[in-house]
């Protein structure tokens, strides 16, 4: 019964979405306030219905209702509660329902908090959101209904894919989806602006918080996915340049470009046509990501069995929305009024450079990801484009971004002073050079380039705070005054500094973990001991343990430093009884920001146990960096000038508080 309510709620949500995609847009054209006013209640209603539907599916999972096909295929009564809940989105149908839930949530947020939006813009934005809602609700109802019943129903389910029974999965897809779907807001705002034929600085100010929110969740989602793959797949890699990973990286890159070009548009009324295009492309890349992941057209290590037929449906949605919006863009964009000229050396100039390289990097990832598909379609030849391609293209394209990143905030709008900005960077350059020399001189092993990488990372970290230092007159004025100034700085200045520093932190982690990781693969007998990475690791033996829906075989390793026990590692293999599937559970000991990583191989006949032990210096910085980035995004979001629904011009802080702008 509850499942039927869930299904019915989805159908009703579709009806509301249809109304929402027609009536407000029509009202905006006919200047009918009543029709436009329908947008908000419709968006709220649609969200409530989808939430009800989602709750119904969750209920079916929690109560192990094995009369639902979806629950049978992805759940088991012995599964821990958290995985019963996360199992809701650990499958195709449920994850799409989550997608729609987040989509309607964003619509509802605009309805609830977008009071200061002009009526027509709001009506158009919600109208476009409604159209996306129609497409995906139709897709769920027609091809991926999670509420399909089975009669007679089995007594037990087939369990969730063991790899997905992990806390990482509980939070990774929701984070990623908030990011993906969040970019639909930028898309809707862009389409609404094109329909309206009017884009101005105010538009940029309204669209930026949504983009920022999507960006910060996508950042966390990608990092979470990377960490999950790192510890769960058992071979300790943090990024594989796999199509599914690239699918999430592309919208992140173009979304980052969008954030920066929207700043130019907000402050200087320039780059309008470009910003609108980026908004359209970013959501297009999000849809492309959904298509790549769901259709399985590309060979991916992360690909779960997928359904190509449903992929075609997503391809159609992709074609309609991208084609439609680009056609609208082609017609309307030339009419948009341009503004704001600037010198090459200026804040705008630096941000143009940022956009240029980010877009080029996105394009390189795009080519590398889709080239095998294109080549196979054209010649039938099967190839794979691996990490070397991306390292050789993405790397060089990101380098200029990392170099220019600290300078940009020191340049004035319109026309900047390069010498003055360079003076502000003296500290950062000094730290970078010192670090490079120290690393090159004292750290054993690793490529020479790694020392430069460390220098670049530290340059980015220290340089990120150059603007804040300059504006607080740190070390040039009494500390009390600096402190007073620091408090007066808009939080978006701090946000930018942290986001940029986060990039440096991540780079530092990537460089160190790539260049100085060490690894041994060996077969050990109980009682044996090895010296590894300055520690002694003793293998004590193997132990069998029962689990809720699996059996564990764990190896016990004791890690000692100079005879003192500092950590225990218990890499294990789990046999999931329902699926008869074997799974490696790696074990990690963290020392500061470095990690010791152990994984266990299959049991062997000769009484030895195969083990892979690796030491990864500074590896956690990769993910800590993205947390720092997201924190920067959060600070920026908290800036009152950007707050959702914040009053317009009148309430902006006085010019005295933002001298560099």
């Amino acid at each position: 019964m509850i499942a039927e309510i869930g299904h019915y709620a989805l159908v009703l949500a579709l009806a509301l979405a249809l109304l929402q995609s027609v009536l407000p847009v029509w009202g905006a054209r006919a200047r009918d306030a009543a029709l436009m006013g329908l947008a908000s209640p419709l968006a709220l209603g649609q969200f409530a219905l989808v939430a009800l539907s989602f709750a119904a599916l969750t209920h079916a999972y929690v109560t192990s209702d094995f009369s639902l096909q979806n629950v049978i295929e992805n759940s088991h009564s012995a599964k821990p509660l958290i995985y019963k809940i996360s199992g809701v989105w650990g499958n195709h149908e449920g994850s799409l329902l989550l997608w729609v839930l987040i989509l309607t949530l964003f619509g509802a947020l605009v309805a609830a908090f977008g009071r200061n939006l002009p009526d027509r813009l709001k009506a158009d934005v919600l109208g476009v959101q409604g159209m996306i809602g129609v497409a995906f609700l139709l897709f769920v109802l027609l091809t991926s209904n999670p509420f399909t019943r089975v009669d007679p129903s089995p007594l037990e389910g087939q369990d969730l894919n063991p790899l997905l029974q992990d806390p990482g999965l509980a939070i990774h897809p929701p984070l990623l989806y908030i990011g993906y779907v969040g970019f639909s807001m930028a898309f809707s705002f862009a389409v609404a602006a094109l329909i309206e034929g009017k884009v101005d600085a105010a538009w940029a100010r309204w669209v930026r918080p949504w983009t920022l929110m999507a960006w910060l969740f996508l950042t966390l989602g990608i990092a979470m996915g990377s960490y999950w793959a790192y510890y769960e797949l058992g071979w300790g890699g943090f990024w594989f340049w796999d199509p599914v990973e690239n699918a999430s990286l592309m919208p992140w890159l173009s979304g980052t470009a969008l954030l920066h070009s929207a700043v130019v548009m907000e402050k200087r009324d320039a780059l309008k046509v470009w910003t609108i295009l980026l908004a359209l492309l970013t959501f297009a890349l999000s849809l492309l990501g959904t298509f790549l992941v769901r259709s399985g057209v590309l060979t991916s290590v992360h690909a779960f069995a997928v359904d190509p037929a449903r992929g075609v449906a997503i391809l159609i949605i992709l074609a309609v929305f991208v084609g439609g919006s680009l056609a609208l863009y082609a017609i309307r964009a030339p009419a948009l009024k341009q503004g704001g000229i600037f010198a090459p050396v200026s804040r705008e100039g630096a941000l143009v450079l940022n956009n240029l390289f980010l877009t080029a990097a996105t394009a390189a990832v795009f080519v590398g990801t889709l080239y095998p598909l294109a080549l196979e379609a054209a010649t039938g030849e099967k190839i794979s484009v691996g990490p070397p391609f991306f390292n050789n293209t993405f790397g060089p394209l990101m380098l200029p971004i990392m170099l220019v990143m600290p300078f940009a905030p020191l340049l004035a709008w319109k026309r900047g002073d390069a010498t003055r900005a360079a003076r502000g960077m003296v500290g950062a350059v000094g730290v970078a050079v010192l670090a490079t020399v120290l690393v090159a001189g004292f750290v054993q092993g690793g490529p020479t380039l790694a020392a430069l990488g460390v220098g670049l990372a530290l340059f980015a970290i220290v340089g990120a705070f150059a603007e804040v230092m300059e504006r607080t007159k740190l070390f040039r004025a009494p500390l009390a005054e600096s402190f007073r100034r620091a408090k007066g700085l808009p939080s978006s200045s701090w946000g930018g500094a942290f986001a940029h520093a986060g990039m440096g932190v991540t780079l530092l982690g990537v460089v160190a973990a790539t260049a100085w990781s060490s690894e041994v693969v060996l077969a050990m007998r109980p009682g044996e001991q090895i010296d590894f990475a300055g520690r002694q690791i003793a293998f004590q033996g193997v132990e069998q343990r029962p689990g809720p829906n699996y059996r564990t075989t764990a190896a016990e390793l004791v890690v000692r430093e100079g005879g003192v026990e500092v950590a225990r590692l218990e890499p294990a293999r789990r046999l999931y009884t329902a699926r008869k599937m074997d799974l490696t559970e790696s074990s990690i000991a963290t020392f500061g920001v470095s990690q010791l990583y152990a994984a266990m191989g299959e049991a062997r006949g000769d009484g030895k146990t195969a083990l892979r032990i690796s030491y990864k210096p500074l590896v956690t910085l990769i993910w800590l960096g993205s947390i720092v980035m997201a924190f920067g995004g959060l600070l920026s979001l908290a800036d009152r000038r950007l707050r959702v629904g914040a009053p317009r011009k009148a309430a902006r802080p006085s010019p005295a508080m933002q001298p560099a702008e």
Partner: protein
Amino acid sequence: MTIDAAPSAFPSPRRRGSSRKRRRMALFALVGLVLSAATALVLYALDDTIVFFRTPSEIAKMDVTPGQRFRLGGLVKQGSIVHEGSTVRFVVTDNASDMTVTYSGLLPDLFREGQGVVTEGFVQPEGGFKADNVLAKHDENYMPKDVADRLKAQGLWNEGQAPGPTPAAATGASK
């Protein structure tokens, strides 16, 4: 990407026209430069780093230079897995030709005899394939697409033949 000016944006009316044009030219030059650099990088990298997918029969037929990298895909032959210390040897077959693969390292969870596998590496001068990467899959029912296509083309494998629960259980999960 144009950066046209609103008339008031620049102070000196006499210099405005030429300056605007010059800046626009500079911007276009910059865009062109970056785009061509990016294109060159991509083309160079594509030429240099792509790896072809081959089955054992294809390797048997062609003239392979030792050291040339490619992906070898097929089924792990029944009873062919031999452990020697931390090195493992197994045979990849497409039921027409066999290829012996050596690999040092832990095998992925879903590596099994009779299952599809994709390995990446190169042919050694003395023959045999040295893999430095054995691809793991998240799903026990998942046949690497490249392998499945080839095997299907040769009539060796059909959808749903894979072990594990019912094929219906293979409908997707998200990353």
